[in-house]
């Protein structure tokens, strides 16, 4: 887990963000390291985590998170972590036309997307995973992939809305990753704006404007949307970041050791 990011955002093991949607967005880069942060963070806080991964295999998360100090395999065996292998489910459905259950311990089939090209079934499965638990975390990697696979923007917007309602009713948190490269169809509402609408926190990751640098890997902007209280002005926190094998270093812009 990235301590510095938690400090900046005001999160800690005792003060987990709950009831919220957190959007991680990136532009021309890959912000999936933040997903590992949330995985490690919530597992260390002993919350239940549902990881629906469509972009990478489970081993990837397991090995990456082991550098952060959590053992996903063990959490999966304990029941703290439910891993929905959407990658393999998609393959099985593509090749065979239907798919048997790959990772959930129930009889229900994970035949979600490609039957009717909407995300209704995926939503039902996620809902079933978090009912009767408090303070759970749902991680979906990643949402733009569904757009590429053929889900319409309208359906994606509905899905995000449903997830938001689920968070508020079940007291869980939803974290997802959005790649901004995808240019929307102008006639339909943009999915990025829709995600931004529902998200209470947005972490935006971009490369440096001046080009690639080995010391500063990019710019990370934390946008907080406070819905309670009378505070009306919420400045965005802009930081430069440097990613190492085990941690994320956040620096105020211009204070990298390479510059000073």
């Amino acid at each position, binding site marked *: 887990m990235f301590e510095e990011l938690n400090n900046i955002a005001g999160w800690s093991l005792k003060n987990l963000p709950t009831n919220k949607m957190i959007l991680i967005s990136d532009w*021309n880069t*890959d912000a999936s*390291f933040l997903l*590992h942060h949330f995985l490690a963070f919530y597992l260390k806080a002993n919350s239940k985590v549902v990881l629906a991964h*469509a*972009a*990478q*295999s*489970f*081993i*990837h998360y397991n*090995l*990456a998170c082991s*550098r*952060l100090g959590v053992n996903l*395999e063990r959490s999966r065996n304990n029941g703290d972590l439910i891993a929905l292998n959407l*990658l*393999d489910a*998609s*393959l099985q459905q*593509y*090749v065979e036309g239907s798919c048997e259950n790959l990772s959930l311990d129930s009889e229900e089939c994970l035949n979600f997307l490609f039957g009717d090209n909407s995300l209704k079934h995926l939503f039902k499965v996620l809902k079933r995973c978090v009912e009767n638990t408090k303070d759970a975390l749902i991680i979906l990697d990643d949402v*733009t*992939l569904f757009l*590429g*696979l*053929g889900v319409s923007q309208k359906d994606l917007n509905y899905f995000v809305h449903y997830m938001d309602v689920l968070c508020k009713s079940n007291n869980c948190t939803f974290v997802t990753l959005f*790649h901004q*490269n*995808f*240019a929307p169809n102008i006639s339909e509402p943009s999915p990025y704006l829709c995600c931004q609408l529902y998200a209470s926190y947005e972490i935006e990751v971009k490369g440096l404007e001046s080009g*690639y640098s*080995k010391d500063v890997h990019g710019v990370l902007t934390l946008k907080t949307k406070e819905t309670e209280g009378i505070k009306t002005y919420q400045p965005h926190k802009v930081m430069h970041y440097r*990613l*190492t*094998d*085990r941690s994320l270093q956040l620096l105020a812009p211009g204070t990298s050791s390479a510059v000073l």
Partner: protein
Amino acid sequence: MKKVTFTKRPAKGGAVQVHGTVVSLHNGLLLVSTGIPSLDSVLGGGVPLGSVFLLEEDVHTRFSTLLTKYFLAEGVTSGHGLYVASANANPDVLLNALPKPTSMSSTRSSQQKNDNDMKIAFMYKDLPKNQSSLSGVSRYGHYYDISCNMDKSEVEKCDLKSLHLTDEISYGEGKNDMFRYTLKHLKQCINNSRYEMKQKNSGDQQLNVLRVVLPHFASPLWCGDKPDNIHNIVRFLHCLRAVARNSMIACLVTIPTHLYHENEVAMIRQLVDTSIELEAFVGEKNPVFKQYHGLLKIHKLPRLNSLVNFVPDSFDLAFELKRTKFIIEYMHLPPDISETASRQGMDETNDKLHPRSACGGVSLNKKLDF
């Protein structure tokens, strides 16, 4: 635990030994060579096993075809299995024109010479001789001579599977037929073979690497003129990644990305693990690039099983094709020359960039006159 992407196991418990592969120094993944040693060093050792490598073609496809041939030739030299699925030309055409390895005969003769006894450093007798080229150990990464073709007998020793997607094959109904057919065919080849990672090692089949090559993928022959082509391509690449993560394969896909819209290309790049683009110089060359044949652009580097990835020293890369080598170098642009007088070797460049003045001397941009 079933490991789907390879990491280095501790030396005690039966490490996976597959010929033609190397464990990465950076993150412990198993890597295979691309067939071009300098490209291997740019990528951090090679292509990780279980990943998809995208080569964005140059406009005339001359160099991308060449890189495909190098990849396949490396598979033959390393004893890997080969799988080629093509819609444009018959895969056999590609397989019959693989370049011949150059260094194989020379390393064998040099090893024989090395028989003299070393009295003091006897422990080093069995180690391979140090090579100063970028490749390193001679068993991984070879050089090829493109003027000669590889012997057919060598190619036939490998486990070859090919698929030629012609109009004669009936793909069935539905939208993404050709793609689905190819993936099913690939999956059938992998199932219950030595390329599949099984939980219990059956013992009789030695694990081997399968090199999957899809040349000119997503060209108009693959897609036709359906409006939702990009979804079919994305779906295929997504499922290909799922297959790759569960087997011992290294995929090379070449796509003519110049035919696609920028956002579609961005979408495609998200679904592959490594992406490089070749931009060949055609027509009049910029004299600064006089010895190179084109630029190599890296769009994505593989980040598997870890938070950070390997990054080469510089992203300004240019390639040059020689008969026996394909060289990729860090390109050093000359410094901006203004008032400094003519330098050795830079005169030619100056002449072409600034026309000669009437009096015959090289005109210098003298802005300040002291």
